[in-house]
C-alpha cells in the first residue's frame, strides 16, 4: 500500500499541488485522473521521488519514503517499476538489454537465468522475436509493452504508469490497459496509473482519484464515476461526444 499525506508542491509562484492526500491499495489499479495541468504528473513524480514535495509525506508500506535520505530511498526504488509516458527505453540498448537492465544492476543472477526472466517478461507482454531489435525499430504499442516488461522484470511491489495510453490507437490502448490490470492482480502489485483516457477509467478504474487544479476533488471507482453529482468531474468525464451519448 502506498499512502500520500498532505502533499503540496509549488514551482515559483505556481501552486501545483495543494494538500493532496491519497492512498493506493495493493493488488488494485489505482487511477489518478484529471485535465492536463491538474498536477497528475507532478504528484506521481513526488511519489517516485523525482520531485521533492514542499510539504507532506509519502509512505510505502509504512516506510516514510519522502523523509528518507537518498541512499536509503534507493532500496525502496529497487521495488518500483515505472512506465514513463514515452516509454523511456534506453535507445542504445536492444529490447533484450533494456529488459535485462534492472537484473544486471540489482541481481546476482547468471546470464542464463537473466535471459529466462527476460523472455518470460517479454512473453508476458505478448512480444516474441524482438530481443535483438532496438527501440527505434519498434511501434508505439510495442515500445510500451517493452517498457512494461522492463518495469516488471525485477518483480516490483509498486508499479507506476504515467499516461500509458498516450499516442496509442484505441485497440492497442485497450490491450495495454488489460495487460497492466492483469499484471497487477497476478503479481499482487500496488499499481498507480495517471491517465486522462476515459476508456481506461471505465475499463480498469478499481479506485479513481480526480485531481482538479492541484487539489483532490473526488474519489471513487469506475461504477460511481458515471453517476456522481460533482460538477467539475462531470465536466471532465462527459467532455467527449462518446461519453455524453453514454450518459443519455
Amino acid at each position, binding site marked *: 500500500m502506498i499512502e500520500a499525506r498532505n502533499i503540496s508542491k509549488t514551482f515559483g509562484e505556481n501552486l501545483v499541488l495543494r494538500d493532496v492526500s491519497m492512498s493506493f491499495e495493493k493488488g488494485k489499479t489505482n487511477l489518478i485522473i484529471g485535465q492536463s495541468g491538474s498536477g497528475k504528473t507532478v504528484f506521481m513524480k513526488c511519489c517516485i521521488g*523525482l520531485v521533492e514535495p514542499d510539504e507532506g509525506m509519502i509512505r510505502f508500506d509504512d516506510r516514510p519514503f519522502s523523509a528518507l535520505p537518498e541512499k536509503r*530511498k534507493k532500496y525502496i526504488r529497487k521495488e518500483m517499476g515505472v512506465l514513463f*509516458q*514515452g516509454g*523511456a527505453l534506453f535507445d*542504445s540498448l536492444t529490447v533484450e538489454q533494456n529488459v535485462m537492465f534492472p537484473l544486471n544492476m*540489482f541481481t546476482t543472477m547468471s546470464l542464463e537465468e537473466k535471459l529466462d526472466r527476460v523472455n518470460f517478461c517479454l512473453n508476458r507482454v505478448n512480444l516474441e522475436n524482438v530481443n535483438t531489435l532496438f527501440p527505434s525499430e519498434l511501434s508505439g504499442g510495442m515500445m510500451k509493452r517493452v517498457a512494461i516488461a522492463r518495469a516488471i522484470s525485477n518483480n516490483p511491489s509498486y508499479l507506476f504508469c504515467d499516461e500509458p495510453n498516450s499516442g496509442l490507437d484505441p485497440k492497442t490502448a485497450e490491450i495495454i490497459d488489460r495487460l497492466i490490470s492483469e499484471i497487477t492482480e497476478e503479481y499482487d502489485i500496488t499499481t498507480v496509473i495517471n491517465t486522462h483516457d476515459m476508456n481506461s477509467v471505465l475499463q480498469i478504474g478499481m479506485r479513481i482519484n480526480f485531481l482538479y487544479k492541484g487539489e483532490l476533488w473526488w474519489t471513487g471507482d469506475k461504477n460511481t464515476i458515471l453517476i456522481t453529482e460533482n460538477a467539475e468531474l462531470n465536466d471532465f468525464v462527459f467532455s467527449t461526444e462518446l461519453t455524453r451519448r453514454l450518459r443519455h
Partner: protein
Amino acid sequence: MFRLLGEYLYLMLETFKRPDKGPVFRRQLLVEFIGLGVDSIGIVAIISVFTGAIVAIQTAYNIDSPLIPLTMVGFTTRQMMILEFSPTIISLILAGKVGSRIASEIGTMRVTEQIDALCVMGVNPANYLILPKITASILFNPVLIIFSIVVGIWGGWIACIVTNLVTSADYIAGIRSWFEPFTVTYAMIKTVVFAFIISSVSGFLGYNVDGGSVEVGRASTKAVVASSILIIFFDLILTQLLLV
C-alpha cells in the same frame, strides 16, 4: 556563475562514486573507448598529418639564413607537435567531436526521461552515464595524442620529401636532436586535463538540459564553446606552471 560552479562540483561528486556494478561499468567503459576514442582515430590522423606537413613546409620556407641548419625543420616540427599542436589543437578538435556527442547523447536521454528512468530504478545516473565517459577520455586521449604526434612528425617528413625542401637525412637528424623527455610528460599532463574538461563539462551541460530538442542542440553548442575556452585557458595556466 558560482551557482553553476557549485552545480558542476555537486555533479562531479555524484559522478565519482563507486559504480553500482563493476561488470556493468567495465562494459560501459569499453563502449565509450570505442565511441569516444577509437572512432576519433580517423579525424586525428587526418588533422595531424596535415598539421605536421604544414609546420614542416612553413618552417623550411622561413629559414632564410644559411647559418641556420635545415635540421631545424625536423626539430621545429617535433617540438610544435609535442608542445602545442597535438595536445591542444587535437583536444580542441575533440572538444567539437566528442564534446558535442556527449552533451547531445546525455541531453537526449534527459528529455526522453531515460535519466529519470535510471533514477527511479535506484541507479545513480551521473555515475552510470558520465563516469565511463570521463574515464575513457582520460585513458584514451593520451593514446590519441601520442598517435597524433607520431603521425604529425611523419606528415612533416612526407612533406619534406615531396617538396624537396629538406632532405630526409636532415629532417630525421632534426627530429632526433635536443630531445627533452619532459616535453612529452608536459603534453600528457595537458592532454589528461583537457580530456577531463571536455568530458566533464559536456556531461554536465547535457545532464542539465531542460526542455526539448532545441535545448539539446543548444547544450551541444555550449559544450563545444565552453570546453574550447577552458582548454585555451588551462593551456595558458599549465604552460606557465610546467614550462616557465
